[in-house]
């Protein structure tokens, strides 16, 4: 065994550490047959019919593979497949035997190349999977709506502590970021709008621009995007890690419905808090816009206020508010659904968390577009 114990202190890097030489039909190997050397070793076997290892000082698994591989090559060249190995000590013999038993059978375990048919198949599978996911998501939506209905009929089923906790998490704690973001959006809108409107002396219309943009679209849309990134991902991660540790299964065996306990309070918290956040966002956006109009255009807060009140229809505000609970439902449902889809490994948790955020932002924007169409049709 000592032959193979690398002795770092004894190694002289400059000296030749390995070699192969053929003489008299014997291939003599010498030196250190170690994993770091064997890539550079010759595979020339010449006419040799035997391998002599008596001068080999060190040999590891890679070295043993090299010897066995040489032996195979020599045997392949000739029908008399009788290539002997000699001069190996007991430990080397054992190692050679172990490696020989475990030599790869051939070019096994290579990944086949992808053909066009494979790609078409993958596309088809993906399409079907997407369709199935949509059906499943709808089914899940139905389950949650049924659970919400049960809560309405029997309010005692509601987990009040959990609901309040989540309302604080997704609502109260999100106020600073939502308010700051909307304030800045108001500032940017006022600034960009004033530059354009000043060209034809219509500066004062900046108030209408800000009011309609913030109240009708941006306030609630941007809030939803922030909440999807903040809370939707947290829902997926929290429910997903509970799923991973089999807590969800444990709940089922105890006769508890995970939808009642995990999903309903979360979705309900979002439905209640997103309109509030939207309102805060609207106010912050208007304040930012008013401030920038004052600085940039000299529109005083009093003028801004009176123009806002007289010129902006209240429906602009209501349109924004009507959308809020629907966006909340989308974010909550997708966040919880992706969480419950997490499998046994950490990788799926990360993948589904990012899927959850991307999908809920996408669906929120799709829903926003649909709302625009509907509101346009009914003339609001």
């Amino acid at each position: 065994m000592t032959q193979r114990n690398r002795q770092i202190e004894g190694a002289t890097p400059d000296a030749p550490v390995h070699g192969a030489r053929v003489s008299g039909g014997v291939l003599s190997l010498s030196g250190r047959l170690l994993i770091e050397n064997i890539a550079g070793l010759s595979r020339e076997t010449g006419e040799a019919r035997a391998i002599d290892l008596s001068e080999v000082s060190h040999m590891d698994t890679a070295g043993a593979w090299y010897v066995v591989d040489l032996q195979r090559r020599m045997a392949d060249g000739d029908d008399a497949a009788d290539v002997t190995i000699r001069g190996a000590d007991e430990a080397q013999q054992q190692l050679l035997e172990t490696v020989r038993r475990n030599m790869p059978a051939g070019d096994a375990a290579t990944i086949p190349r992808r053909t066009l048919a494979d790609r078409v198949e993958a596309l088809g599978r993906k399409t079907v999977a997407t369709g199935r996911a949509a059906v499943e998501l709808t089914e899940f939506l139905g389950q949650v709506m049924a659970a919400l209905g049960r809560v309405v009929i029997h309010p005692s089923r509601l987990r009040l502590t959990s609901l309040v906790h989540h309302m604080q998490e997704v609502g109260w704690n999100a106020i600073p970021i939502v308010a700051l973001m909307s304030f800045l959006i108001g500032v940017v809108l006022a600034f960009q709008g004033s530059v354009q409107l000043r060209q034809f002396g219509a500066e004062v219309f900046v108030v209408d621009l800000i009011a309609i943009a913030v109240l009708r679209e941006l306030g609630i849309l941007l809030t939803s995007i922030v909440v999807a990134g903040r809370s939707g991902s947290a829902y997926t991660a929290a429910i997903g890690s509970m799923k991973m540790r089999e807590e969800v299964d444990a709940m089922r065996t105890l006769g508890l419905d995970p939808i009642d306990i995990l999903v309903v309070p979360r979705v309900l918290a979002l439905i209640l808090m997103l309109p509030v956040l939207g309102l805060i966002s609207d106010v912050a956006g208007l304040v930012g816009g008013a401030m920038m109009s004052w600085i940039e255009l000299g529109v005083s807060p009093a003028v801004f206020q009176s123009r806002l009140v007289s010129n902006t229809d209240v429906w602009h505000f209501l349109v924004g508010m009507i959308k809020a609970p629907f966006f909340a439902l989308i974010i909550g449902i997708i966040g919880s659904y992706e969480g419950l889809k997490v499998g046994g490994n950490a990788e799926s948790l990360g993948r589904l968390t990012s899927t959850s955020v991307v999908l809920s932002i996408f669906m929120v924007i799709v829903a926003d577009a649909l709302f625009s169409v509907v509101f346009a049709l009914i003339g609001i």
Partner: protein
Amino acid sequence: MQDHGQENDAPIIKVRGLRKAFGSHVVHDGLDLDVRRGEIIGIVGGSGTGKSVLLQQIVGLLTPDAGTIEVFGESVQAKTADEYRALRRRWGVMFQDGALFSSLTVRQNVEAPMREQLDLPDELRETLAGIKVRMVGLEDVAQTKFPSELSGGMRKRAGFARAIALDPEIVFLDEPTAGLDPIGAAAFDTLIRQLQAALGLTVFLVTHDLDSLHAICDRIAVLAEKKVLAVGTMAELMKVDHPWVHEYFHGPRARAALETKDTGKAEKVV
């Protein structure tokens, strides 16, 4: 085992006066341990006696508060990053449940240390990794699978393959048979024994499995009262008078394991 070279009688791992505390909770205090070259040493102890903590300190994942740890006669602590890397190449660690990289296939997991430490041609690296995967008894189809597609026992085997990827001199195994069925655990014991003989390994085995202790350990070290309470062969430890040690080696499960060993000795090929 006896044919192992004795040119170097110094212990391959030497721990002296080790102290480790987490806050006010002292895990080790004045712990001494010698591991000899070429042996399989089993580390046992009750839950929370710091078996895994000891392992982590020896491989440098945790820093001891006091005391010295020498591996191959060199101190593990006082090392530059480069020296530590060179030292680390000479041991392999298998964590509980394998700790495989979940984004890599089994073979890529085994290739990972080779890729990190050596500059090998791709094909050669794949071949060598393939041999290691076969050596731990995994089928060829397992090579291109991801860890999440494997059973617990297969993950442990793959973790073992990664630990021996670079032909280390020492392998540290953290509870290799925990969570395996008795047949799988016995097969894993045999595997450790076979590879230990074939590769000339020194094995540092943290375990709770009395069958493993009986079947493959040359010596056993008992951790209790913050130190190594006793070291010796199974027969020696059977005679130790300490209550915990006595309970451990004379309890009903220990007796059962001992009987199995005695009756099964004849046909067991190790």
